[in-house]
């Protein structure tokens, strides 16, 4: 008997069932998967949009991200130039190939860019967020050719561009957005939830930023 059959058989024995799930119980489980209903959503996450944006900024900053607000997308390169100068980095960044990022006028802001996935040694990257989750100041990014996931982990400074209109209250609303925009059952290869920069407290429980991932996380928030 294969491991698979032995394990499933022993599970059924423990559940006092002789075969696979059937009848009403099976239908209930299938319905549960199909409906994927949210569970309890905390009151904190249920706010009008303006409150969600404020909460997102507050929680992201609490998690040691920095947040800069710009009024329009065209202002993103200038903000990135300002930020890189501010932290003492060269005016260079690897940007996500996504048109919303790579298509901006970077040269006008004096930032040298390459649109590709990240490689070891890249110091700063710019990537687009799919959504922002106000509840905990969490960014949600989708991996794919337009937004390679290495951009999120290899640099020292990770810059994420987020449209304020895409800030939702709870995580569940971000899943709903993914399902409605990309289709039921579709998942990117990786969904990254990112809340603040990398950290570790493994040495004497003292928190240090920048363990393996980015030492800094900067969020450029467009509009309100």
């Amino acid at each position, binding site marked *: 008997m294969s491991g698979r059959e032995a394990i499933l058989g022993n599970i059924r024995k423990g559940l006092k069932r002789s075969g696979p799930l059937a009848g009403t119980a099976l239908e209930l489980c299938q319905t549960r998967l199909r409906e994927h209903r949210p569970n*309890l959503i905390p009151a904190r996450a249920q706010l009008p949009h303006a409150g969600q944006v404020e909460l997102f900024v507050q929680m992201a900053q609490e998690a040691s991200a920095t947040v800069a607000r710009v009024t329009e997308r065209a202002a993103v390169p200038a903000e990135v130039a300002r930020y890189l100068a501010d932290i003492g980095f060269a005016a260079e960044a690897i940007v996500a190939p996504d048109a919303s990022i790579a298509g901006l006028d970077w040269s006008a802001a004096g930032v040298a860019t390459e649109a590709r996935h990240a490689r070891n040694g890249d110091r700063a990257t710019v990537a687009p967020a799919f959504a922002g989750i106000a509840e905990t100041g969490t960014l949600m990014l989708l991996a794919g050719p337009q937004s390679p*996931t290495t951009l999120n982990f290899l640099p020292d400074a990770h810059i994420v561009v987020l449209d304020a209109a895409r800030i939702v209250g709870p995580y569940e609303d971000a899943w709903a957005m993914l399902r409605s925009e990309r289709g039921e059952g579709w998942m990117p*290869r*990786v*969904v990254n939830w990112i809340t603040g920069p990398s950290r570790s407290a493994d040495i004497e429980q003292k928190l240090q930023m920048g363990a393996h991932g980015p030492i800094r996380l900067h969020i450029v928030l467009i509009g309100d």
Partner: protein
Amino acid sequence: MQITSPRFKQNAHEALGDAALQRALGNLKAGFPGKRAAAVARMPEFEQLRDAARDLKNHILEHLDFYLETFEANVKRRGGHVHWARDAEEARAIVLDICRKAGAKTVTKGKSMITEEIGLNDHLAANGIEPIETDLGEYIIQLRGEHPSHIIAPAIHVNLDQVSDAFHAHHGKYGKTERQTEPRALMNEAREILRDKFIAADVGITGANFCIAETGTTVIVTNEGNGDLTQTLPRVHVAVTSIEKVVPTLEDATLLHRLLSRSATGQEIEVYGTWSSGPRRPEDPDGPAEYHVVLLDNGRSNMLGNEFREMLRCIRCSACMNHCPVYGAIGGHAYGWVYPGPMGSVLTPAFIGVEQAGNLPNASTFCGRCESVCPVRIPLPKLMRHWRAREFEKHLTPQGFRFGLGVWAWLARRPKLYRLATQVATRVLKPLGGKTNRIGSLPLAGGWTAWRDLPAPQGRTFFEQWKDRQQAGGAK
């Protein structure tokens, strides 16, 4: 790893006398419980979330075969592979086979207690493949030749100067000859050295906190980002996990997410929650070309059918050990195998046998702090008591203990005699307490008084006082 659970008492004794360990355990007690309490205070629905998580987990366990098969089908649909391992040996063989087929020389590892449970590192090393732990805490203890002493803070028993020593001893070959003494500098050194390891590795091995049936997704939860570099850069990603980690939907995993970090470190949420669905797609510029999930049973399916089923709700947050006075006094290594603290005292006898691990569930006062903080409301004291019963049934407890328990049981079934005996005992013991009302040494109770004083009885038994109180109340 070598199992030392049978010599638990000796381990605990040594741990209590280990000054460096006691200093390190102070960091734990000063940190996690207060941070958890603060996070819980900010989430008014926390108790309701715990109820919902308990109910969700119970539902999953009742339909575990269905959700596992659905998970498997969805992983395959996305081009991934699912392997089922009945026990540790099968799991090790599966991972080794994947590594061999990948021609692996080195593998990087994200933090995974399941790979500790199956003893993966030793097995890979014995077969010529170098495993490299990349979580900072895991890396520190790997250099020191140790195993984790805590399920989320594996190096909690190590002090700063010991980290300095370990890095100084091992990093010379990378040109790092200066002994660093600041946490920041030590972490930077590890970051630099491990970055090259991530790039060079052929296979990346992680655990998985959740496996989502609906989408065929595995989820890892980290703060360092090492798990992501581990699973993104090598050509092959293997997620080694266990059968009870499956959840129905993204929404269900989200419910457990709200509880996990708050219960563990007191964070609102971890830094990186990574939801992986299959291998690199044709148009992808990065990510692993192969994606494997290993589902380990190793005794879990047996627990579904016995009195330990509730233990399978565990989401490995570590709140129980962070709040346990026994863990706080002796640390994790004393427990003698992979899982320490209250959850370990229930799991270890299930995995390695009550014959070897019977002392673990005995080392509890049943104070109940573990159950009071468990995010999925596992009745840990009750489950430990079940092990005590089994140990007794199997005649594993010492003769003297069984005799004493027999005498007590005989007496307890004779209430009049019991009350008389306790009346006599309290009156005999009271004067032994002297001025301090504490008894420093007592015949037949040396096991107790060798380490602490016995508070002297105050002269009258509970039943006597209760009777007085009832009569006084009745007179009103």
